[in-house]
């Protein structure tokens, strides 16, 4: 059942021709060449394939492309996907939050959404936000510290 599906990816209108049940992950990586989005478990447990769908983080391995028709998809290739994304990427590098890198795109997108929605997330809030992103190098501590560093750099509001 091949049909054409139109979706907005990183602000550009793209068309995919194929089965509507094709995973968004496969459309991104194989048809559109956007290989920044990684496949880990393929069953929604690890968060490596995280992308933004209308601004919310989702596992692209669990999204059939037909449900994305007419919606906004942002991937790690889009430095403007979330405000502050580039700063977070830099801090992940300088704080040693990147090891093998397979989980990094998903973690950066998810943490960027947290930093956008929450002014001063504490350790518990950061852990909760990243609960759906597994790092098999187990480098969580430095990932949390990278996020905390950006929180610390934020100006404190007048009390």
């Amino acid at each position, binding site marked *: 059942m091949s049909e054409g599906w139109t979706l907005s990816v990183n602000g550009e209108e793209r068309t995919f021709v194929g089965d*509507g*049940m094709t*995973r968004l992950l496969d459309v991104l990586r194989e048809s559109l060449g956007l290989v920044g989005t990684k496949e880990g478990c*393929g*069953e*929604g*447990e690890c*968060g490596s394939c*995280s992308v933004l*769908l209308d601004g*919310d*983080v*989702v*596992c692209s*391995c*669990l*999204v*059939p492309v*037909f*449900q994305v028709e007419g919606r906004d998809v942002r991937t790690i290739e889009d430095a403007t996907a979330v405000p502050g994304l580039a700063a977070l990427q830099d801090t992940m590098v300088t704080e040693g939050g990147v090891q093998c890198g397979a989980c990094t795109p998903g973690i950066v997108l*998810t943490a960027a*959404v947290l930093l956008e929605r929450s002014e001063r997330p504490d350790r518990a809030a950061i*852990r*909760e*936000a*990243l*609960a*759906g*992103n597994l790092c098999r190098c187990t480098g969580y501590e430095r990932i949390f510290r990278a996020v905390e560093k950006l929180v610390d750099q934020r100006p404190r509001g007048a009390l």
Partner: protein
Amino acid sequence: MGAPDAVAVAGCTDLMVVDTATGRRHGAVVDLQRLPELAGVRDDGGWIDIGAAVSFSQLRREALVAEHAPILVQAAATIGGWQIQNRATIGGNIANASPVGDSLPVLLALGAELVLASSSGERRVSYADFHRGYRETVLEPGGLIVRVRVPHALPDQFQGFKKVGTREAQAISKVVVALSARRVEVGGQEHLADVRLGAGAVAAMPIRLRRTEALLEGAPVGADTATRAAREARAEVNPIDDARSTARYRAHVLGRVVRRLVGDISA
């Protein structure tokens, strides 16, 4: 839903896992996500009325749910990470009918009812009558869950929820329990009334622990009652060994969780 091989989908967080693992293909796929009849949370005369396609992220943000069903918010926050909560829906959790669905014991404890629709019309069923066996429900072929209704909380109502998994976050439950009970004062001592105790991962489907509920009904609030309830809960279930846990562990932990939840009533 006239096509016999049609499948209705919402967040697809269960369906896609099976599709990928098995290479299963579908005929017609019907998307329920944008149907207004299945959307939104509203107040409806003593009930909160939740659209079946409401995601767990939405549930976590809804003031009405926080006010009347705090344990539903708690359960929603334990279902996968953000990625899953943004897509998975309460109706999907119910329709998938897994014995370990985390919102299901909560809906049993809260005394929820479902609005079901099919080509022959709409009907309401008590959620306690919905599951019939392992992944078997009273939903007819082609039928849909439209709304999930939860009664308003009462001022003297206690609600408790506890899930035990391999890790704190993003784990499939080994045991999941939800409790609702009213605290009624009789002769200077608080007693329990209208007790509903839901449990998951201890049977082929989400169940009410009816014997434990009967023991708790009218019992005084306190550590003694909590201990007796724990013993009864362990005795009344017959869980299985599987990849996630063992029958012995499940029965043991169920007792501990029931004791803690009942004990929390006096806290």
